[in-house]
């Protein structure tokens, strides 16, 4: 990190920059980087991901490795999820909370503890190595997250920002088929929210069965210098095409997945955000994490507002910031919205007063002085198709 944090941020390039441009991407500044918003067109790329497999560059995201004795217990002081009981190779969605229970970021944490093979010469048996956790955080918040974690984790815990690693996501119903053809017998036994390390030739990969589209798929982390070759290799498969940030946003919206900075902020708690699944049951009472007091009160007493899905008739989308009404009374705001290519009508997420949050509730959303009829819908809008195994 540089020390000139007061000067305006320069837009930086990521390892796949030239690759995107060769593929015809339109590049836009996003989270401090030049990123591809689209190649062929958002709807085409969106549909391709729902039907085949889309390849996304998400190298702007923060990849962190946290190591040290008692690291799980220390992470549990910052995250409301059970980390100590997360088995090696398992992944959990969690939240970085401030002291008031506000969401600083949402993230994925993987128990990355390595299995050390038996060594007959040394006379050691196979055993688990030092505990390590691989954490992926949002690009726009990564510097704040790192500062927060460094401040609140004890000095014995090392936090490495893996900025020498790229991250790509292969998402869609044919992602597994394509990946299996490129590298055999690697992902056969993996289910949703599992992660493995695999040496593909001489390239060390971390492959995680997860994503941000609602489809089955994988995120692959690897050293910057190999990512372009891997992308070429993947795109040589008939099922795979590059997909930009535009479709990434419409896909995650259909999947009902919140976007940090829009649907989640430091002023919003996990209960209002309808993310109670990230609050591991055993820790709701025992607590011991930042913001627990507030989260616990919200769980007991409920919250004023709740994140909901809204569906619209017609074609006019309601965007972020649009006001939501029940009759004359303003009851909420849209936090992200757009046109759903899969469903063929507009959809949105937003926060509404708890009394209006039941699915089926008929509300109105104001767009350019017009009131659009909207109905509260259960999330996701488009069913998830994760590979959960038998």
């Amino acid at each position, binding site marked *: 990190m540089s020390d000139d944090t007061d000067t305006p941020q320069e837009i930086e390039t990521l390892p796949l920059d030239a690759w995107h441009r060769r593929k015809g991407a339109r590049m836009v500044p996003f989270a401090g980087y030049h990123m591809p918003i*689209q190649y062929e067109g958002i709807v085409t790329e969106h549909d391709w991901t729902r039907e085949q497999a889309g390849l996304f560059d998400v190298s702007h995201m923060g990849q962190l490795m946290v190591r040290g004795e008692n690291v799980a217990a220390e992470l549990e002081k910052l995250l409301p999820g059970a980390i100590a009981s997360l088995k090696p190779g398992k992944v959990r969605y969690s939240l970085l909370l401030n002291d008031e229970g506000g969401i600083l970021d949402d993230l994925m944490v993987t128990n990355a503890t390595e299995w050390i093979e038996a060594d007959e010469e040394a006379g050691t048996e196979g055993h688990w190595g030092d505990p390590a956790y691989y954490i992926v955080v949002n690009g726009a918040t990564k510097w704040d997250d790192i500062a927060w974690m460094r401040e609140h984790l004890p000095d014995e815990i090392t936090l490495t920002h893996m900025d020498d690693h790229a991250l790509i996501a292969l998402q869609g119903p044919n992602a597994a088929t394509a990946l299996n053809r490129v590298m055999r017998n690697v992902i056969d036994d993996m289910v949703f929210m599992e992660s493995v390390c695999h040496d593909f030739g001489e390239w060390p990969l971390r492959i995680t069965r997860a994503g941000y589209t609602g489809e089955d798929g994988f995120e692959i982390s690897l050293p910057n210098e190999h990512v372009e070759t891997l992308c070429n290799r993947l795109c040589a498969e008939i099922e795979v095409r590059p997909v930009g940030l535009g479709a990434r946003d419409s896909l995650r919206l259909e999947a009902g997945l919140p976007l940090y900075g829009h649907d989640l902020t430091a002023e919003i708690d996990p209960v209002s955000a309808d993310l109670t699944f990230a609050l591991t049951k055993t820790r709701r009472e025992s607590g011991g994490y930042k913001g627990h007091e507030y989260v616990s009160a919200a769980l007991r007493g409920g919250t004023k507002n709740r994140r909901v899905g809204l569906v619209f008739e017609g*074609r*006019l*989308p309601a965007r972020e910031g649009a006001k939501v009404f029940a009759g004359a009374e303003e009851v909420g705001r849209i936090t992200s919205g*757009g046109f759903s290519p899969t469903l063929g009508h507009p959809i949105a997420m937003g926060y509404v007063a708890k009394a209006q949050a039941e699915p089926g509730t008929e509300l109105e959303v104001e767009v350019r002085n017009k009131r659009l009829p909207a109905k509260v819908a259960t999330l996701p809008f488009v069913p998830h198709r994760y590979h959960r195994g038998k």
Partner: protein
Amino acid sequence: MARYFTDEHEWIELDGDTATVGITDYAQGQLGDIVFVELPDSGKTLEKGGDAAVVESVKAASDVYAPISGEVTEANAALEDDPALVNSDPEGEGWFFRMTVADKSQLDGLMDEAKYKSFVDGL
């Protein structure tokens, strides 16, 4: 018939006393897949450079400005059912609205096709 272009990527074609307005092929390419077009009602008075229409693409809403002042005489009803016409034929079937021409001299400040092309090439 003469066609003029604005630096906001609208085109306007003069036909006698009325003019037809739309957005350019470059503009539709920048906007991407268009899902809704909000058009002005007939009879609405437009001021040159003022808001005239709104184009909603999958990713964002964008304003379309009046290239000249005048009164709207007709909106393209075909865009209601098929807003994607703006993507497929922006400078033809995907026109937005027709309007009267309040002051022909306002057209003088706009670009002709060759000038607009070099303007776009420079972007």
